[in-house]
């Protein structure tokens, strides 16, 4: 009952919200908030009354002799994701009250947000890969629509296109995986597929290919290398959307799917691929985050990097490390994003870090809560981020397959997170205002609508740090692996402190030294590479534009016009030529006409004569 309502309410709610909002803009928010918290309540009630996995098998439709199911399966893993999605979703809606205050399109906004939450719920409570895919695509659509929410302007509209197409590229592989799995496993039930793979009932090479295909989809959705550029572009959307979709929930679905099919990945021996790609992404994300000028871009790269860490956690074989990091990250990243949203809103929609500064006095609460998020993100004990990150790094070092390059990249990414997060915190809150005029106009945000949700998240971030063991056990039934690597903890901590110190120096006390360094040609080149995200987007765009559109499509178009349709139109020319030929022989002279008759007769007679001889 609760489950059914949980699945349907967001979608009906989205429609209702839109319609209500058309009556009166205000209704949209209140209805959306009501639905948001109802959803959270529903999840909580499921969570509290949970005994065993909820398992409902439903047949969706059958075509010919094949049947496609659409069941519901909710276990601990799903519940954690549900709590994240609905909890953060509800807080996000609450936060939106002020953030979207000025916008005339509130009904559309809230409807889309609810639709997104619905997609996420569908994704995590799906029993089969098919249902998961439906939720997956719904979220993709919602993400597209919300990124392009301000469709009137060029950048958000372009960003939406990028978001949809980059993720669609991955989705196609997930779709393919569904087709292949249905063929080999005759089922799409995720639990069953895991079992089949574990028993090696699916051919090994097939499982490996399927695992890679699914991982490609995860790469797309979770913004991993090389499909991450959309995530940065997605920051064109409202910050509330970035917080919910591109920080806390949707981007996690890639990790969720790998976690959901963890046994399958183990059996397919594809985890090392996951770890390898993820470590590269982690490195790219962490380094690029250092060179960004916009708050949201920094957070976007940091999201990429942290999702990679969660992937690495899974990749090194530790489901618990990956999932706890996912959970921790979801909360503190939503906190940071919404905090950034609060800052941006207060600063009159200015996102440039270098025009901010010294905002501590005016935005004390926000600064405080963001600080909590930053500490957690950088992995400083006792905040939640520390435990999971530590476990992941330890796992990467301990696993012989990932020890070496992968673990090194992981460590670098882990440590660098301190740098970028404190960089933005310092640039926003510390020092003196760089843009006095802007600073004057900053006003303290509402306590109830803005600071309250931030506070709740900060609190959860803090509290979560003390429940890591329980969280890990809840999700996976296993404890977080203890860091058995000697000296790791002190080494990491000292590295973090060192990096933190450098950042403090460069961004707080000695900006002149920083500027001098940045003026070096080599540093300029580095900065350019990092600022542009290693030019991955440029390369992909170049390929699509020059190879696919201007070469392949253009050539085919030429062939179509000149050859295929040309042949059809050529018939016209040909018949014109034949007509001219015939017409030339048909004059209206009587003598010619009579001549033709007689000559023709003779010809026929000759043929007959020869024929009769033969």
């Amino acid at each position: 009952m609760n489950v059914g309502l949980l699945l349907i309410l967001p979608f009906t709610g989205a429609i209702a919200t839109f319609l209500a909002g058309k009556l009166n803009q205000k209704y949209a928010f209140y209805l959306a908030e009501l639905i948001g918290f109802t959803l959270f309540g529903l999840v909580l009630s499921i969570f509290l009354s949970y005994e065993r996995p909820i398992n409902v098998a439903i047949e969706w439709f059958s075509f010919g002799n094949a049947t496609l199911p659409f069941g519901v399966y909710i276990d601990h893993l799903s519940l954690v994701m549900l709590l994240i999605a609905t909890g953060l979703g509800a807080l996000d809606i609450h936060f939106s009250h002020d953030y979207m205050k000025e916008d005339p399109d509130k009904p559309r906004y809230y409807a889309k947000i609810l639709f997104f939450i619905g997609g996420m719920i569908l994704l995590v409570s799906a029993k089969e890969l098919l249902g998961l895919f439906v939720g997956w695509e719904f979220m993709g659509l919602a993400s597209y629509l919300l990124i392009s929410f301000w469709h009137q302007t060029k950048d958000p509209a372009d960003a939406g296109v990028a978001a949809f197409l980059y993720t669609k590229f991955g989705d196609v592989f997930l779709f393919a995986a569904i087709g292949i799995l249905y063929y080999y496993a005759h089922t799409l039930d995720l639990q069953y597929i895991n079992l089949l793979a574990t028993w090696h009932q699916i051919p090994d090479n097939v499982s490996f290919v399927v695992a890679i295909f699914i991982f490609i989809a995860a790469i797309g959705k979770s913004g991993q290398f090389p499909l991450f550029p959309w995530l940065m572009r997605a920051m064109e959307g409202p910050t509330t959307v970035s917080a919910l979709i591109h920080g806390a929930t949707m981007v996690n679905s890639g990790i969720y799917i790998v976690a959901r099919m963890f046994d399958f990945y183990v059996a397919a021996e594809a985890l090392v691929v996951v770890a390898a790609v993820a470590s590269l992404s982690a490195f790219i994300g962490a380094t690029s985050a250092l060179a960004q000028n916009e708050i949201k871009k920094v957070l976007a790269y940091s999201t990429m990097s942290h999702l990679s860490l969660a992937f690495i956690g899974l990749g090194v074989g530790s489901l618990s490390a990956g999932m706890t990091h996912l959970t921790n990250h979801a909360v503190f990243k939503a906190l940071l994003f919404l905090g950034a949203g609060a800052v941006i809103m207060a600063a009159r929609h200015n996102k440039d870090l270098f025009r901010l500064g010294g905002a501590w006095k005016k935005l004390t609460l926000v600064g405080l809560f963001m600080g909590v998020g930053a500490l957690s993100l950088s992995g400083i004990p006792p905040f939640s981020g520390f435990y999971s990150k530590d476990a992941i790094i330890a796992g990467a070092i301990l696993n012989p397959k990932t020890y070496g390059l992968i673990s090194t990249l992981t460590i670098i990414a882990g440590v660098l997170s301190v740098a970028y997060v404190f960089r933005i915190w310092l640039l926003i809150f510390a020092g003196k205002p760089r843009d006095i005029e802007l600073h004057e106009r900053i006003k303290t945000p509402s306590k109830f609508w803005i600071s309250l949700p931030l506070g709740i998240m900060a609190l959860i971030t803090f509290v979560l740090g003390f429940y890591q063991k329980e969280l890990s056990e809840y999700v996976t039934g296993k404890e977080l692996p203890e860091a058995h690597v000697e000296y790791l903890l002190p080494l990491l901590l000292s590295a973090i402190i060192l990096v933190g110190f450098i950042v403090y120096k460069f961004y707080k006390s000695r900006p002149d030294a920083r500027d001098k360094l940045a003026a070096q040609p080599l540093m300029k080149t580095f900065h350019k590479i990092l600022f542009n995200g290693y030019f991955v987007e440029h390369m992909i765009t170049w390929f699509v534009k020059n190879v696919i559109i201007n070469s392949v499509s253009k050539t085919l178009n030429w062939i179509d016009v000149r050859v295929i349709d040309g042949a059809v139109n050529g018939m016209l020319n040909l018949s014109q030529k034949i007509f001219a030929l015939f017409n030339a022989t048909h004059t209206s002279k009587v003598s010619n006409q009579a001549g033709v008759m007689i000559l023709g007769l003779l010809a026929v007679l000759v043929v007959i004569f020869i024929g009769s001889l033969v």
Partner: protein
Amino acid sequence: MSYELLIFAPLALSLLVYIPTRNLGGTKYVALALFVYMFSKTIELYKQLPEHGYMLLGKFLEVKAFDFVLTLQVDRLSVIMLLLTCVLLILVTLSSWSLTKKPAAYFSLLIFFSGAIFGVFMSTNFIWFFIFWELTLIPMLFLVGIWGAEGRIYAAIKFFLYTHVASMLILLAFFLIYKQSGTFDMTLVKEAMLTTPALIWWLMFIGFAVKMPLFPFHTWLPDAHVQAPSPVSALLAGVLLKMGAYAMMRMVILLLPIQAEKFAWIFVVLGLLTLLYAGFMALYETHVKKMVAYSSISHMGLIAIAMGAMSYASLSAALFEMIGHALIISPLFLIAGFLHQKMNTWEMTDMGGVMQKAPYLSAIFVLAGLGALGLPGTMGFIGEITILISTIESFGSWMVVILLGSLISASYLIWTFRRVIYGEMSEGVKNANFSMNRVEFFSLLVFAFLIILFGIYPQTLFDEINQAFGVYFTGGTL
């Protein structure tokens, strides 16, 4: 009432409403009433259908010596097509509500078309099938030629000639069949044929492939669909192309299963080529209606692949995709035509920001586009996944390449949204007045509703579709 009237009454009625010299505006009501009536009769017919096989509605105009008998027989497959046709005819009539140029002639041609198309789906005699098949071309020729856009004459005549040449091949195939079997009745032919020369199969395949259309026989379509008035484009894509696919299914596959099995690879190769080729064409296209037309062709490639798999599941999937495609492509054509009508340009580069002036219209365009790219929750997705699963079942995992088509279609559709619907308003959009006739908008809403309805509850359709094909697969395979 006898059912032959469903064919001949519209044919006669069309003349009746055409002849009066005063241009009667009320013809559209006549057309609408007729189509609704035909729809109700078809539903009635549907309820009477036997569990399996054909229901004989009557034999008329018998010429024993040549087996030239108007045999009206329907089974589930044909009635499903009839229902689809009725729905589209009604919606197309509604979409033409504000037509001002010679409305009497326009609607009389639509009425004529309805009679002919009913004949196609109801007659099981090859010759009569062919008669109605050809008869559908006539109203289309005029609808494109008189009400079309600037290149209408070239398009109309090209369409007419191209498809007529194809029909000649079909006719020859029918004659060869008759020579083999001594009967023109398609329900008896399969048993009566002693041998089936490959020539028969090829003639029919090429003939119907033109109508579907499959690469490389597709070039009439972009011209015809683009130049036709938008409701007619919808009719072309929704009914005429489906007629080709229906005939392909019924005659090339179900009638000649052994040959079809042997040449299944032709379906797959041409289907794939069509899917990808048309996709790339659409990707390069900046002409908004041409883009839709190529997208339409691309989907027909998908249907061809599904047909080539020749299994119970794949044929069901193909039929579902046919219906889905009809409902999805039609609103795209309608809206593309509407934009052209209001802005006087076809080029996407001259558009942009339509969402700001016509949000609901844009929303329907986006919805239909999402259906075309196979987003879950729309009919497009159901068609795509069923085709994927059933073709993999028949040909193996490599059939996942058809998803490349879905990737390409996503690319051009999303990029089209960007260029047409989203972004800053272009000059043309700023100056245009996008107010739409309420009735026409209503028909778009119905399309949108159906796309979602059957996208979420496909079972309602599949119940019927499965039953339609079940009879052919009682032994497992054809």
